[in-house]
């Protein structure tokens, strides 16, 4: 007999896997985006099960709130002037891609499941936001600053790409 948290965990896991399959296998790109949003919500639930509520909230804020909206804008900006192609390519290409992914799945599955990870029996406690902030600003200061620099450069770069495409100097 499974307890209630286990049943909810299985539901969240099912949601994540079904969302990933919808993302990959759906014919329309909008349906793929909706599947991606479903997957991200499922992964936020898994983060809650991993004692990381702050990461779960950041997952919903950044991925569901920002990145999927950005992809939706890209779809809408690139979409309206031509007939949307079906996402299915030739069956041969799909079969080859499927074989490659299945082979990589089997190989990595054997590697991951046969490895001896060092499990600690330490009692898992909830890492608070204060812990994450102390690590970020104490030990990981340089990567933090580099990430902010990367985001600034990428925003300026995307604006410059759009301006160059319009022919403005």
């Amino acid at each position: 007999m499974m307890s209630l948290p286990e049943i909810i965990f299985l539901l969240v896991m099912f949601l994540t896997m079904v969302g990933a399959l919808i993302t990959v296998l759906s014919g329309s790109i909008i349906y793929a985006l909706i599947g991606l949003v479903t997957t991200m919500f499922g992964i936020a639930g898994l983060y809650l099960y991993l004692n990381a509520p702050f990461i779960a909230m950041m997952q919903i804020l950044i991925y569901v709130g920002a990145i999927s909206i950005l992809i939706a804008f890209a779809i809408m900006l690139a979409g309206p002037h031509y007939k949307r192609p079906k996402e299915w390519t030739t069956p041969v290409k799909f079969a080859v891609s499927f074989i490659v992914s299945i082979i990589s799945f089997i190989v990595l599955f054997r590697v991951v499941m046969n490895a001896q990870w060092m499990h600690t029996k330490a009692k898992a406690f909830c890492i608070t936001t204060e812990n994450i902030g102390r690590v970020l600003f104490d030990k990981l200061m340089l990567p933090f600053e580099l990430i902010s620099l990367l985001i600034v450069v990428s925003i300026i770069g995307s604006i410059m790409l759009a301006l160059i495409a319009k022919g403005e100097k």
Partner: protein
Amino acid sequence: MATPIYNNLYIFLFLGLFLLTCGILGLLYRRTIIGMLISIELIMNGAGLNFVAFNRFTSPDNAFGLSFTLFIMGIAAAEAAIAMGIVILIFRRYRHIEGRDIKEMKD
């Protein structure tokens, strides 16, 4: 009482591996660039899930894995912004976004 199933490292590793495989499949057979971008987001989600799972099960008393998951989110946001700019540029030049015909640099 037995340990619950979510108290196990391997099931999270399996989920991350499943997301990686779905991302590889989509990246290989999608026709449009936006489809490939969505598949890359799947792969990055799997990587973040692996980081948090390893932090939870192998060293639960520090927060390095969680911090690197935040870094992955930042990299994914930057990549999505750049990819949106490139998609708009490609669409204005070619009037479509299929990856097959974009081959000027190859010739």
